[in-house]
């Protein structure tokens, strides 16, 4: 039952906070269990969704389709991992518990977000996930985290206000906020300035939320300053769900593909891909580099979406999933490095691959996956995006996308060179591998990357291409 995915976190939060001391210790297992349940659920419904028969739902969250189930799976995986990271890095027990509660709420928000088919409910859950993230980012109450949280909060609030204004305009137009009704009303008046303004406001809000250039100002700061577990969650899934998923969903279901939306997505996608990669190239803070890389990868998703073809959309969703996996993995690695060495400044690190072999190898896999090196999962999604662009006639963008993967590789090689793959730097001699709480999820994610990558040729027909089956 999809509704459970929202209700269970709520129940968990309520139950765990009953004034019984031992309950606090159950929070972590509960979170893991919940994530596992969600993953199992998503995997369970995925084949049926892909086969084209949406699961019938008895309660109010009544929508399941391939896109939703893929996202549910991604949310579950990232949440699972970030709980591990939380355990490894949160420090104080009380704070860990508090943060765990917020993770529950954020997950509930994201689950709700992918399950609803109503604009206003979408806003509510989007805001829920966002608020939980603001607080999580600031959770350590260190200056950086506060700064990142504040920037995120302000820009995100602006974005939601724009979306709400758009909702109000659309409400006036259609008298409803459900996807179907709004889509109908939009189609009736597709070219009117009023409608376009509403559309523009909503898209603008979503673009801010997804951190697309030039709406991305908050993103590098929030990602890099957040506590390790939070940046894992945030980069891996929160902004992807609140921004990118919502964008995909709304463009597909509500706004529809017009030449204008295509053009828009292409332009902003291309800017993000290139500028994000360029900015990442010059970073010395590991997490900040990953943040810019995130912007760049979101650009790819947008490019894939912009084709409007089944292949392109499927590729975009697949890339979204892959991005969740490899970016989470990278942030876990960053957390491991930060925890073991006490710094994220790449200029003070070096040769960690020898000292932290698991972190080194998994980071390598994640990077290659991001850069689109076969046979990892990221290669396939990038290949499909480029292919979709090319086949749709956007040759220039295809070339750009493929060229930017060179930049991607370039900055990741620079990261590898400075952090993992060089001589062991003075001061790093006594570094040891991070504990199981960080290596285990790394291995899990790396296994997913490799597994999906190797199995993809057999999965593409049954799982990937039906994703666009709306």
């Amino acid at each position: 039952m999809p509704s459970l995915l929202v209700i269970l976190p709520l129940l968990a939060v309520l139950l765990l906070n009953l004034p019984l001391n031992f309950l606090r210790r159950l929070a972590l297992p509960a979170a893991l269990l919940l994530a596992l349940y969600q993953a199992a659920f998503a995997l369970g419904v995925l084949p049926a969704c892909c086969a084209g028969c949406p699961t019938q739902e008895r309660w109010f969250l009544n929508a399941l389709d391939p896109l939703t189930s893929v996202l549910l799976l991604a949310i579950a995986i990232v949440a699972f991992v970030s709980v591990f990271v939380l355990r490894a890095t949160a420090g104080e027990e009380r704070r860990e518990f508090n943060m765990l509660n917020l993770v529950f709420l954020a997950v509930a928000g994201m689950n709700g977000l992918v399950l609803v088919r109503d604009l206003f409910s979408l806003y509510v859950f989007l805001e829920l996930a966002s608020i939980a993230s603001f607080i999580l980012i600031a959770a350590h109450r260190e200056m950086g985290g506060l700064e990142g949280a504040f920037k995120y909060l302000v820009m995100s609030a602006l974005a939601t206000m724009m979306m709400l204004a758009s909702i109000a305009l659309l409400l006036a137009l259609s008298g409803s906020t459900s996807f179907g009704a709004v889509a109908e009303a939009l189609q009736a008046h597709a070219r009117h300035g009023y409608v376009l303004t509403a559309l523009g406001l909503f898209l603008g809000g979503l673009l801010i939320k997804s951190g697309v250039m030039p709406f991305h100002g908050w993103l590098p700061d929030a990602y890099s300053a957040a506590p390790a577990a939070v940046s894992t969650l945030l980069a891996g899934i929160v902004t992807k769900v609140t921004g990118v998923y919502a964008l995909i969903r709304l463009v597909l279901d509500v706004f529809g593909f017009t030449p204008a939306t295509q053009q828009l997505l292409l332009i902003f996608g291309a800017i993000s891909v290139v500028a994000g990669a360029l900015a990442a190239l010059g970073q010395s803070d590991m997490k900040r580099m990953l943040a810019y890389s995130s912007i760049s990868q979101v650009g790819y998703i947008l490019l894939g979406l912009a084709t409007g073809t089944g292949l392109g959309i499927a590729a975009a969703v697949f890339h979204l999933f892959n991005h969740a996996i490899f970016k989470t993995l990278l942030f876990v690695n960053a957390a491991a490095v930060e925890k073991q060495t006490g710094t994220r400044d790449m200029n003070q690190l070096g040769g960690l691959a020898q000292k932290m072999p698991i972190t080194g190898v998994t980071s390598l896999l994640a990077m290659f996956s991001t850069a689109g090196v076969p046979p990892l999962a990221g290669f396939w999604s990038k290949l499909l995006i480029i292919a979709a662009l090319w086949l749709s006639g956007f040759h220039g963008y295809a070339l750009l996308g493929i060229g930017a993967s060179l930049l991607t590789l370039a900055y990741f090689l620079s990261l590898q060179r400075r952090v993992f793959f060089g001589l062991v730097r003075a001061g790093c001699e006594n570094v040891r591998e991070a504990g199981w709480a960080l290596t285990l999820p790394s291995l899990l994610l790396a296994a997913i990357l490799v597994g999906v990558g190797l199995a993809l040729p057999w999965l593409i027909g049954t799982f990937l291409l039906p994703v666009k089956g709306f």
Partner: protein
Amino acid sequence: MNLVSLVMPFGVFVALLAAVGLYCLIVTRDMLRVILALEVITKAVTLLLIVGGLVSGHMALAQAFVITLIVIEVVVIVAAAGIVIAVYKHTGTLDIRRLRNLKG
């Protein structure tokens, strides 16, 4: 003159209110005033929602939205205030220009 022309001025005023908020959001250096500016924008949007309900005739729906919005708004403001106060405890100032440690 019909209902539409009746609500027409609302549209303009909503935009003006939002403009005031946005302007302040951009030019102010005071973090608390940033929150105030957000509040002003929120007021504009709230009004727009009500007007939307009025125009489409779904006033109940609009009211439901506004109530939810107000609740969420409060939480956002609380969170924002919490962050601002924490920043103040660190730096002793509310100057937004002090929030420029993360750059590049």
